[in-house]
């Protein structure tokens, strides 16, 4: 077993067994509608499901939006289901628990139902409430999943303080008092949080790599050899950036923080380095803005002020390397492997996204050369 969080170690073993499964066939829309109705028949008799529609976007889960009518009061929900494999390897139970833990503390979609063992739906599934808002200005029809999204003025100055306040709330959250049975706190020694993290992603890379890229091997070895101590174990969102929150386009208010599936307990520097990663930012008139919100120095200073957490530059550098490595693993290992096995409903998107792989190899080589020169 991999030296990582127990639930994630089990997940890594389970996915090996799925590797030999036949091609994944997207769920039939009408069958999903019938399954939703029978789900609610058993839990909320009298409620009727209608307007079931497949959603686009995303690169990991199969999603359907639907209306649930209770005594003439309609409400909209999303059903999220796991295909055989995808660009991430995550647990619906953890996502469900963390959404419920933050409900009332942060704007998050309300998680209402979970079928973790696929007892009713054909694969593990979760139902969440729909939140109004957009992930990018409606004038931007071109960017994919937040890559290259430009909020522009005046929106970025309205969104930025909220974005940083919410991140501060996540990092200062009292996870020890929350109901998170699927999470295990890495408290054995100060390196355990990041050691567990590295071993999880390394095992994914070993299982899924479609090419033995030398720079990736060097990065893996460097990350293993230089694990920093974690002074404060925080909730780490794992994918915190522009593209992963909804906002009201009229006033710029963030209405929901999304995509919690890669969440874990660990070092908060991972989220900071992720949000200011080049691929998620904008370059306009010679100015780079992380998540199109602010240049990194301003972003970090405002985060420190909002959270009271000190940013350690050496740790930020470590997680900058980690994030380029993780990004490569997501797009060029997991995504490509899922597409090659025909184990996802979005193979054509996964092979498109895999083209970002060289960007991360280049970034890793550049960062490791900086290390070599010191």
């Amino acid at each position, binding site marked *: 077993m991999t030296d990582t969080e127990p639930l994630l170690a089990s997940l890594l073993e389970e996915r090996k067994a799925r590797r030999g499964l036949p091609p994944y066939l997207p769920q039939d829309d009408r069958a999903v509608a019938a399954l939703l109705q029978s789900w609610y028949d058993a839990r909320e008799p009298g409620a009727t499901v209608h307007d079931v*529609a*497949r*959603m*686009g*976007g995303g690169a990991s889960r199969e999603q359907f939006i639907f209306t649930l009518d209770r005594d003439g009061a309609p409400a909209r929900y999303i059903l999220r289901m796991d295909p055989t494999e995808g660009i991430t390897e995550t647990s619906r139970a953890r996502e469900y628990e963390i959404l419920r833990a933050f409900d009332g503390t942060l704007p998050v979609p309300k998680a209402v139902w979970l079928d973790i063992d696929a007892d009713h739906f054909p694969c593990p599934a979760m139902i969440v409430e729909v939140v109004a808002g957009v992930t990018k200005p409606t004038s931007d029809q*071109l960017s*994919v999943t937040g*890559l*290259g999204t430009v909020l522009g003025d005046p929106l970025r100055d309205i969104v930025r303080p909220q974005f940083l306040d919410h991140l501060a709330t996540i990092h200062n959250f009292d996870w020890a008092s929350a109901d998170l049975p699927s999470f295990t706190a890495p408290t054995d020694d100060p390196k355990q949080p990041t050691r567990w993290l590295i071993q999880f992603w390394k095992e994914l890379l070993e299982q899924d790599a479609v*090419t*033995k*890229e*030398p*720079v990736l*091997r*060097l990065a893996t*070895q460097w990350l293993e050899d230089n694990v920093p101590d974690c002074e404060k174990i925080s909730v780490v969102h794992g994918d915190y950036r522009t593209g992963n929150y909804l906002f009201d386009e009229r006033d710029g208010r963030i209405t929901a923080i999304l995509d919690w599936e890669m969440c874990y307990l660990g070092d908060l520097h991972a989220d900071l380095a992720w949000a200011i990663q080049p*691929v998620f930012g*904008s*370059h306009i008139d010679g100015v780079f803005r992380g998540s199109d919100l602010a240049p990194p120095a301003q972003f970090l200073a405002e985060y420190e002020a909002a959270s009271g957490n000190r940013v350690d530059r050496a740790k930020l550098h470590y997680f900058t390397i980690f994030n380029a490595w993780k990004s490569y693993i997501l797009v060029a290992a997991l995504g490509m492997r899922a597409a090659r096995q025909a184990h996802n*409903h*979005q193979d*054509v*998107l996964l*092979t*498109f*996204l895999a*083209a*970002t*792989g*060289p*960007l991360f*190899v*280049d970034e890793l*080589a*550049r960062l*490791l*050369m900086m290390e*070599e020169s010191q």
Partner: protein
Amino acid sequence: MNPSVDDRLNSVLRALQSVVLPALPESANLAREQIMLAMGHIQIIQAQRDATPGYEEGERADIADMARALLAVAGGGEPSAAARAELETRLADKNGLARERAEAVREAIDALLLAAHAGDERDYHRRLAAAILPLGRARADKDRGWFAPMGFDSEKSA
């Protein structure tokens, strides 16, 4: 006259664009998205078709250059000797397609890095890394240029 590859791909694109896409309801978000992505893939593949053999041969040549550079690195001891010998063997093997030969060499480089790291040949491993990183970066730069038409790379796609 036999239909050329371009004729065939253009006809597929036209079918997707002018027949399949308009037939999909506005609500069919995922299907519409996938048709658009499929068309994008085809257009890029079409634009790169003539250059593809040269690109794959360039990949092979670059990884072979890296392998030669690594074999020239001094200081490797017993723990990594077998991996060096295997790298030499794979480098000399002229069988297979360019991309298969490139991957065979990559696997041998990977084994060498693992052996040097596990065998605690720290200085030797550091010299291997110093040889790999600039060459790896130069190769990644070419790959970024190759995939620039996908539109994700703000620097290269501009």
